[in-house]
């Protein structure tokens, strides 16, 4: 039997896997989103309102939070079509900050004081969601849709020439990613028992991208490894005390120098040039 402490680590790993996948999906279509903490916040706050204020059961509340995040994701996804590369990254960063500021001013969820009273997320529940999503990603990887996403990633213009609906694919990826972030946020809120707007800051969005980066940008299971390493490592590094953030920053710089394409790239040699064309903006 696992100790409480190890159970918590494992549970957080599961949540981080879901959050990592929310950064992975837009990246799979060549879009870097730095605003996923905003979608996470929407899912966390919406599901918490439903369970705490209106006594909903956890499962429908989680689904509703994810659905609301997905709607927002689609709404953000459309204007995001016009932007590429770093400009998209900057715009999504702005979106994340706006969501955070919104909750800072939203009285129903406690504003800056935050919200408490949530409970009920269990280890089994979190990993059941991870499993469901993993099956989804696996099926996607072996489907026509998965190939279409790859095509959009590798060469958007060529993909459009062969008749793929770029708009639907990119906006869809954004929407599903937002739903995953919302789901992760909902589970997080019902595990950690207390949320405040500061939880969902710019750094949280960055960390989601780090999970993907560490695992390699082109494999969904790489994100699992990335999320696990980044969840467990900080705990192993507690002896660094207040220097942990500095260590992570240095680690990120170092990782990018030695493996700019992530630790587990799918086709290390084939991607770079295509990627340059796809995301270059």
């Amino acid at each position, binding site marked *: 039997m696992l100790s409480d402490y190890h159970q918590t680590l494992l549970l957080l790993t599961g949540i981080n896997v879901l959050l990592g996948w929310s950064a992975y999906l837009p990246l799979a279509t060549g879009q870097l989103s730095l605003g996923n903490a905003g979608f996470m916040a929407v899912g966390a706050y919406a599901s918490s309102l439903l369970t705490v204020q209106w006594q909903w059961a956890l499962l429908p509340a989680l689904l509703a939070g994810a659905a609301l995040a997905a709607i927002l994701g689609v709404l953000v996804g459309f204007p995001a079509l*016009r932007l590429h*590369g770093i400009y998209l990254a*900057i715009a999504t960063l702005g979106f994340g900050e706006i969501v955070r500021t919104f909750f800072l001013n939203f009285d129903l969820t406690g504003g800056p004081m935050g919200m408490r009273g949530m409970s009920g997320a269990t280890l089994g529940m979190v990993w059941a969601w991870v499993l469901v999503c993993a099956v989804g990603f696996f099926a996607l990887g072996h489907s026509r849709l998965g190939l279409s996403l790859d095509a959009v990633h590798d060469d958007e213009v060529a993909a459009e020439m062969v008749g793929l609906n770029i708009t639907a694919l990119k906006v869809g990826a954004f929407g599903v990613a937002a739903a995953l972030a919302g789901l992760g946020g909902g589970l997080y809120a019902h595990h950690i028992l207390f949320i405040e707007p500061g939880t969902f800051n710019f750094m949280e969005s960055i960390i989601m991208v780090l999970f993907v980066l560490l695992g390699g940008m082109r494999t969904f299971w790489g994100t699992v490894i990335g999320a696990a390493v980044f969840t467990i490592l900080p705990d192993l590094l507690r002896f660094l005390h207040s220097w942990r953030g500095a260590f992570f920053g240095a680690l990120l710089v170092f990782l990018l*120098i030695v493996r700019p394409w992530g630790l587990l790239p799918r086709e290390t040699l084939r991607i770079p040039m295509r990627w*340059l064309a796809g995301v270059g903006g």
Partner: protein
Amino acid sequence: MFVQQLVNGLMLGSSYGLIGVAFALILGIFDMLNIAIGEVFMLGAFCGLVLVTHGVPFVAALPMAMVFAGLVNLVIERFAFRPLRGTPPVIPLLSSIGFSMLLTDTATNIWGSERTQFPPSVHVVNFEIGPILITSVQIVILGVAVLLMVVLQLLLQRTKIGRGMRAVAENALTASILGVDSRRIIVATFFLSGALAGAAGMLVGLTFSVISPFIGIEIGLKGVVAMVVGGAGNIQGAMLAGPILGIAEVLSVAYLGAAHRDVVVYGLLILVLIVRPAGLLGAVERARL
């Protein structure tokens, strides 16, 4: 007090403008976003704080903080940008985020996370022009900001290194074929960009007298907004957008309440990106100097 708000916004905005120009130099010339400029700005403020606390007069502390910030930016270039040449622009963006984390945390460990005060370093005199109150501090800030912008323009337009920078911005390959030494241009641009951010740090230290390791994120990111609103990579655009942003922020605090100022600032960013992705003064596709 509408006019007074405009004046206050202009002061705040001149720092946004300087940070925006620091971002725009690197984006305009190399097509890369160095997020860590925010932390270079923060370190400039702390360097100024240390100097002023030790009795160094403002006129001497300003150039020293600028040189220090410029050198920090060269270190960032060495580790976060140079090894990643040829990768898509989002990769160096991520490694510069790594530097942001590293520098923020290092500053927190050295100076603590509390907000610190600048000791008074400029003799404060109040000038009343009709109903408007302008302090000597504000005049110094505006004067330094304008002076740096003029010097930067002269440097870009009139000097050999400035011509080299503009040539690389236009077309890096052609510039290198024509004999522009790209290493020198990279070093000069990163140093210049860091120095401007450092100057902004000094000025913010003067205005609000409160600095912390987190101003890189709180204020520095608004420099990115100023740059994008002005036309990413466009230096005059960032100079113009900084004050616009500062005034918008001060007015929204005055008339909508302090809680809404970030909504206004980032809302403006998204509006500009959607309606006019090239920014106020930006050329379509790729911004020029």
